[in-house]
């Protein structure tokens, strides 16, 4: 008999209850804030370099209520969503085609693999030259950062479709188009949704970099401004807001996927 009475004992791959999961997750946040408080309130770190949690909350309130930070948040979200949607619209069909048709894959895969390693942030000076410092430039940074990743990952997913399902569909009279529309797409759809969720997370890091340079709005812009004023409270608040939005969009994406693909959870 295995004894499960001791709640603190851990065994490999043993599951936790959902209550425990929430409690453990919260515990780390509390630990994190406690360490931060100890470092700042205890005087172990200079105020100039790191604001304490209370100052951060005050600065955040000030930002939201008096300085119109909500508009900056809105701008940043629109850039991420816009650039990411643009990338997805082009990358998903291309990835599906590459996964389904090996000649197309052989044609595009080497270039896309190369382009994937080009850092999006390094394109910023070039994009400013091409597209100015307007919204298009910001969208293009996100686009370049996401599009090649999505293409490759979607191609791999579609290419890994179970062969026996494809064969079964053929023996049921499916045409080549039917195979793509009714086997390859539905079988890879949940994976593609997961890929988009993952890459959306990366897109958030690109947008901030794009906003640090040559921008007059957005969370990244606020952070550069605050740096000039040595306002670490605002910087940290900005970073935390990005984290919270990321967490929220992740939750929404997960819930949406679960709703879209009930057969996976059945």
């Amino acid at each position, binding site marked *: 008999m295995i004894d499960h009475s001791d709640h603190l004992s851990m065994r490999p791959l043993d599951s936790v209850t959902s209550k425990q999961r929430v409690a453990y997750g919260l515990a780390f946040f509390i630990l994190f804030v406690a360490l931060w408080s100890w470092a700042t309130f205890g005087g172990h770190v200079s105020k100039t370099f790191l604001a304490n949690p209370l100052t951060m909350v005050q600065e955040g309130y000030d930002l939201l209520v008096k300085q119109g930070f909500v508009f900056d948040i809105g701008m940043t979200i629109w850039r991420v969503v816009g650039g990411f949607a643009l990338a997805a619209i082009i990358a998903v069909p291309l990835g599906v085609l590459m996964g389904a048709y090996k000649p197309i894959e052989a044609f595009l895969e080497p270039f896309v693999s190369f382009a994937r390693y080009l850092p999006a942030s390094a394109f910023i000076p070039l994009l400013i030259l091409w597209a100015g410092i307007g919204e298009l430039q910001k969208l293009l940074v996100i686009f370049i950062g996401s599009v090649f990743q999505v293409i490759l990952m979607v191609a791999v997913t579609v290419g890994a479709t179970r062969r*026996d399902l494809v*064969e*079964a569909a053929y023996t049921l009279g499916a045409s080549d188009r039917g195979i793509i529309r009714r086997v390859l797409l539905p079988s890879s759809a949940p994976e593609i949704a997961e890929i988009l969720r993952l890459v959306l997370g990366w897109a958030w890091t690109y947008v901030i970099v794009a906003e640090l340079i040559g921008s007059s709005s957005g969370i990244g812009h606020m952070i550069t401004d605050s740096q000039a004023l040595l306002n670490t409270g605002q910087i940290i608040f900005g970073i935390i807001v990005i984290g919270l939005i990321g967490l929220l969009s992740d939750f929404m994406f997960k819930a949406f996927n679960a709703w879209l693909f009930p057969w996976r959870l059945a």
Partner: protein
Amino acid sequence: MTVLRIEQVSRTFPARHGNAPTRALEPTDLTIGNNDFVTILGPSGCGKSTLLRIVAGLDRPTSGRVTLDGREVTGPGADRGMVFQSYTLFPWLTVRENIAFGLRERGVPEAERNKVADAFIRQVGLAGFENHWPKQLSGGMQQRTAIARALANDPKILLLDEPFGALDNQTRALMQEMLLGIWERDQKTVLFVTHDIEEAIFLGSRVIVMSARPGRIKAEIAVDLPHPRSYKIKTTPEFVQLKERLVEEIRTEALKVAEHA
């Protein structure tokens, strides 16, 4: 009238990484007539699945040809329904949608294909499970759905590749009776591959015994047991006699494989 002709069909898998080419199937002839239930019996590695895949059009013969009603098989098609050993239901479709897959591909309107699907759902005893996902079904239920899916397409010939191979013995016996019941009622042309001797006799009107390495037809044995057959037939002297004979045939082949392994 359905006639499937397998004429001098052979299959050699090309050499790979310095290994010699593998001859999976020697030139083979076999004719299957209307409403025939033919079982192909052989040890693993005798090329029986290769032969079935060639008939299905999922594999190409190295030589020879397969014709169905005079038309040469060049690829897979709805006229040859197939049930695989692995579970191949589409996980994103419900039982009803899986069974209606081929009808939908042909452009049959939804109301009509649901009617056809529901009739087959009843026939394989899955009433009440129409809207279940494959994940929620047992292995036996999944294979029953797969059989219904192949039958709903109304193929000229039904090809089954060890469809009950992954099921436990009790479920397997029930599935055999169900399949035989459908055949006795609806008169379908069936080609059934198995390594289970009892299954081959119980289901088949003819048992084709295949030899191993290289795969070729070794013997053909007619099963003159009356229809409808129930599970009780498995203990009759006639059945046992046939079984003894096939056990000997298969045993020599299995020994050959074991020696070469």
